[in-house]
């Protein structure tokens, strides 16, 4: 069991070792250029916005845009709503998509191409249109609650989540792993939880990151459904004070990012502890 898990983990921790020869020094050289160019493209707008948010109305440096955020009307409620939607969406997406993706790979691999197609559909239909379609057909019970948004976000997250899971499942030898576990007497539930999922850790992680970030950033649907989620609040507030609104956007970016960094390191610690326990 340990060997089954240890192999992809090694890959997770230590990537392809390609050092030593002159050819690979050249690879490192173009890597520097790519990282620098992309880094500049992503950091400069960030810097520009930061400078703008630190500028008072008289053009002087001030922190007031940042310090006044918690006391802004509606901030706490909007943030809490977005976090709640993110949790609901992530749970439903994982419960729905992980068994489905494993099942497709194991039992009906001939449907993989069809699944590729189905899971691309949600990005085909623009969110503007989908939410109106949903609001047209949704029962009144659901229309009265923001949780309807989470249910639709599951559909939005599906293509990204399925793609990650699919790529993760392709990279491991799922059939052999499952056969080995089953022949050693493992039940389906323990095979899924203790053999398949640990091997999919990287894919699950990227799927979770995608889902959480999607929900915390989605604007179009939430605004059309008339719920004040975090992004909607930022935009509404921009009309009052662009400096504060920019400050909140920056904080939201950094906050989400730190949260995800936390999830990542938590996951790594978990996996290490788990591995140690198993190998004892």
């Amino acid at each position, binding site marked *: 069991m340990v060997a089954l898990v240890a192999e992809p983990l090694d890959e997770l921790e230590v990537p392809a070792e390609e050092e030593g020869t002159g050819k690979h020094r050249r690879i490192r050289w173009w890597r520097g250029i790519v990282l620098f160019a992309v880094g500049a493209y992503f950091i400069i707008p960030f810097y520009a916005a930061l400078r703008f948010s630190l500028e008072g109305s008289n053009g002087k440096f001030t922190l007031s845009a940042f310090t006044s955020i918690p006391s802004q009307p509606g901030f706490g409620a909007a943030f809490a709503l977005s976090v709640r939607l993110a949790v609901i969406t992530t749970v439903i997406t994982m419960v729905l998509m992980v068994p489905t993706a494993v099942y497709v790979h194991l*039992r009906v691999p001939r449907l993989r191409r069809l699944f590729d197609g189905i899971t*691309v559909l949600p990005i085909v239909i623009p969110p503007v249109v989908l939410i109106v379609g949903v609001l047209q057909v949704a029962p009144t019970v659901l229309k009265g609650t923001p949780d309807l948004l989470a249910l639709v976000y599951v559909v939005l997250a599906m293509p990204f989540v399925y793609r990650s899971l699919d790529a993760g499942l392709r990279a491991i030898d799922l059939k052999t792993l499952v056969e080995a576990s089953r022949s050693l007497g493992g039940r389906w539930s323990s095979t899924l939880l203790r053999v398949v999922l640990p091997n999919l850790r990287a*894919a699950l992680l990227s799927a979770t990151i995608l889902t959480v*970030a999607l929900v915390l950033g989605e604007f179009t649907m939430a605004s059309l459904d008339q719920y004040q989620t975090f992004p909607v609040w930022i935009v509404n507030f921009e009309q009052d004070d662009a400096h504060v609104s920019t400050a909140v956007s920056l904080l939201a970016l950094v906050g989400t990012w730190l949260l995800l*960094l936390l999830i990542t390191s938590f996951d790594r610690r978990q996996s290490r502890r788990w591995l140690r326990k198993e190998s004892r």
Partner: protein
Amino acid sequence: MGESAQVSAASHRSIPAGDPGPVATRRGAGGAFEDDVSGRTWRSRVSPFVGLAPFALYTLVFLGIPALAIVYGAFQKPSGGFTFENLRLATTGIYRTGYETSLELAVISSVVPGIIGLLLAYAIHTSKSTNLRRIVSTSSGVFANFGGVPLAFLFIATLGTTGVATTWLRDLGIDPYQHGFDLYTLSGVALVYMYFQIPLMVLVITPALGGIRSTWREAANNLGARSWQFWRHVGGPVLLPSVLGAVLLLFGSALSAYATAQALTSGSIALTPIQIGTFLNGNVLAGEQNVGKALGFGMIVIIMVVMLLYGILQRRASKWLR
């Protein structure tokens, strides 16, 4: 499929030799697995699709039915009754221009960020620094979903007429606004879209890069292959379907992006999603209420065509692999 066969061959090799368990039990386990499938009673024989029921049901309720409602609306007169008038209006005049501009934008902002994102993902994947990879993978998740008014605002502060980067470039003697660049036109929107398209590409393609085993690279090197030969004959073909799929996702994402372009251009360039948004906001002429649905229907048709091309390409790629 040839691709998966190659992947599994590689992972057999990478299972530590000291532990014969998984490899040794493979044949026996395979038999047990087959028995397990065929030995079950009526349940498995009724249909192997039963396991897909929850997914199918969910997709039907939250995607299929709303989509059908839109398609149905595209062929309905506002007063009720079947008509082609909506479609006729949606494919002529300003709406036709909207489709053309949207397609141009979607092609530019899927191919360019696709290439950059692939390079970045590969640079990160082969990097030894765990911290670098963690930072890039988590920030990709954040930036891929960053959009709308905040993103537009970031770029107005950067490349607007008085933005930070514009000022820098002007000080260097290059005024981007005198060299054909304008943040509020197609070129500007394409540049801004890269802010979420590149991270999206990184997120989608990174798991696929994990499928390229370092042992292949070593084997190719041992056989005397140069770097480009490895990519031409091994890495490229294996990655091709994944890369095409990822670029397709970017295409769809660019085609249906709404909030960013709306915030940046306030509708000054004709893009189909913005036109649909206008309809949904209620700014419509009498008798044209369903043209917005016809526009949405048109976008679905466009992607269906792209998907078909993608399917053909992918089949060819996997055939070539065998």
